[in-house]
């Protein structure tokens, strides 16, 4: 039952009553309630732009991949003209899935059940035994195609929405686009996947992962504490704190948006100091780029940056680059600088989506990227390193995927579901002086604001008509 002002659950609880703006709390019921989950499929995944993959996964005419928009399977296919189309993977005849494989190449998608056939853009071609007209005469052929989603490419990333008349993708990104462009639009040739995504199931509500990707900095200190205890992160320069203390990594600038997007821009000065022995305050933008190219780029590639980014963006990229964060509702990105045994740095470029698979289940989907013109040796290093740290067997993210199921279980308790998630660590700083970028910006040690803004947008969408 829905009212104009607020979605109401069957026991009379308003969804907006589960969010406490004055104390910045969220009632844990939202992590387990099946009714809320069903509403999310309509009001969140049916309305926002959803990431499905990258166009480099389907380079040739006829290539297709099968992906998920919320709880719906979709076909993402490239046509003869090179355009990418997203269509619902449901045969309009009797509801059979049309594409049954993870990927493939075909100009005609033919349903195995009764043989209805569709083009890469979803248009209905025909049904078997044309003269018998299995598809009848009540509807025009033009009405019998696969349902088409609205799609867009951004830096080659494929996004789609069922909200045909809704906000444009640029409006959806809003102020955060200025920052995302530094990651996805920075190079001349753009980025590409190093292979298909890793996929695995976590028995947790999708929002446990979704809210974390809205730039949860604090969890790194404790959950990922091992980074400071063993391995290359534990080796610190002088005056940088000892051993397990990861707190210097918590300092930077955090950006959030009214649309729930979030980025952690982490201070690069320490890394530059360690690599060059120079004072980063005395280095020009070019010198800093040369000392430490953006994650995934080489010195040879840094001249491209000025072709694609503004001076202001370059300033941020060389002092406080966005390194981790998310895009609402279920995307995480990591463009991180990983220290190597020899003291150098190798970048990792990774993106995840957390696909809802029911109130208590999500599918973790992990793509690994490199710049198209990155040298082969760097790509190989990035591929291995990223697999070893992130995704299925990743030593960092193993710990995350073992945490979210417990939160989901907690949210099922008769008492537990009334407990709250708290986002009460609040910035009192604002943007650094002279900060050139837009958005809601705060500097200093990480806080909860970005995640709280994520929930505010969730609440807004859940209560929208």
């Amino acid at each position, binding site marked *: 039952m829905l009212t104009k002002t607020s979605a109401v659950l069957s026991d009379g609880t308003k969804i907006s009553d589960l969010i406490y703006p004055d104390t910045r709390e969220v009632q844990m019921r939202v992590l387990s309630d099946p009714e809320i989950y069903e509403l999310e499929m309509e009001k969140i995944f049916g309305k926002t732009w959803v990431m499905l993959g990258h166009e480099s996964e389907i380079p040739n005419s006829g290539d297709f991949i099968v992906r998920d928009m919320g709880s719906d399977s979709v076909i993402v296919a490239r046509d003869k003209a090179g355009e990418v189309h997203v269509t619902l993977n449901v045969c309009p005849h009797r509801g059979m899935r049309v594409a*049954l*494989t*993870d*990927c*493939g190449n075909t100009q005609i998608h033919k349903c195995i059940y009764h043989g209805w056939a569709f083009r890469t853009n979803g248009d209905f071609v025909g049904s078997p035994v044309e003269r018998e007209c299995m598809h009848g005469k009540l509807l025009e052929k033009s009405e019998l195609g696969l349902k088409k989603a609205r799609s867009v490419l951004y830096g080659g990333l494929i996004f789609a929405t069922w909200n045909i008349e809704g906000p444009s993708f640029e409006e959806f990104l809003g102020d955060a686009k200025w920052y995302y462009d530094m990651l996805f639009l920075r190079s001349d040739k753009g980025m590409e*996947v*190093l*292979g*298909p*995504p*890793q*996929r*695995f*199931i*976590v*028995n947790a509500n999708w929002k446990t992962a979704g809210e974390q990707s809205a730039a949860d900095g604090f969890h790194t200190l404790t*959950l*990922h*504490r*091992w980074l400071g*205890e*063993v*391995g290359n992160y534990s080796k610190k320069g002088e005056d940088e704190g000892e051993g397990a203390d990861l707190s210097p990594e918590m300092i930077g600038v955090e950006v959030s948006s009214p649309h729930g997007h979030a980025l952690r821009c982490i201070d690069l000065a320490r890394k530059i100091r360690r690599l060059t022995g120079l004072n980063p305050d005395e280095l020009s933008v070019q010198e800093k780029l040369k000392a430490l190219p953006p994650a995934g780029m080489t010195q040879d590639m840094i001249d491209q940056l000025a072709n694609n980014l503004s001076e202001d963006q370059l300033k941020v990229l060389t002092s406080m680059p966005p390194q981790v964060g998310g895009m609402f509702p279920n995307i995480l990105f990591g463009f991180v600088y990983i220290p190597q045994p020899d003291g150098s740095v190798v970048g990792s470029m990774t993106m995840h989506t957390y696909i809802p698979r029911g109130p208590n289940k999500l*599918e973790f989907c992990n*793509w*690994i990227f490199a710049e198209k013109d990155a040298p082969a040796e760097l790509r190989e290093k990035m*591929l*291995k390193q990223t*697999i*070893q740290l992130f*995704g*299925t*067997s*990743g*030593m960092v*993210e*193993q*710990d995350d*995927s*073992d*945490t979210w*199921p417990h939160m989901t279980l907690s949210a099922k308790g008769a008492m537990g579901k009334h407990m709250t998630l708290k986002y009460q660590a609040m910035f009192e700083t604002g943007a650094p002086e002279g900060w050139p970028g837009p958005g809601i910006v705060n500097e200093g040690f990480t806080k909860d604001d970005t995640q709280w803004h994520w929930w505010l947008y969730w609440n807004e969408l859940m209560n929208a008509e």
Partner: protein
Amino acid sequence: MQHAEEKSLDISQGPYVPVGSAEYSAVVTFLYEEAALLDQLRLNEWGNRLATDLVYTAPLRHTRLGVDHAQSFVRSVQHFHDDYRSVMGRILRLSGKSAWAEDPPSRTRRLVTNVLVRETENPDELDVTSYVLMTRSRFSEHHVDIISFERRDVLRKQADGGFKLAKREAILDQSVLGTANLAVFL
């Protein structure tokens, strides 16, 4: 089916070491001991059995049509893409204080069967394929995660009559894994 035969092409075609022979038994003993070490969390002892030029991988799997079966094995992005150094790094982490993905540890059983051993061009090395059904129990969950895979190993003979693991490719069966991570070795 015709295409089903293509799958075996990337397995060595050397002559089989007869099932039940002394060499075969030595290989099976190595695999059983290895399973016990891993299931008993004796990771450092397991690490001692790895060759320093180890290649340790686990391809992704795709659901493909029968004619495209060979492409159901994805070796670009994989679930594991490791070497000796990185595997020892994983052991170091898991032996530390804060590896929460496996602390408390999973209770695992690695059931190793269908062992076939072939000679290779290198007299010191054997190609060993086996099937593994691994069960993984965590916390008080009553169900266990089932991780099923085929191992394609290269074992290298040692002077003392034992073996070291020089190569392992774990070919998982699921295109979407039913376990929350691979913080356990395959």
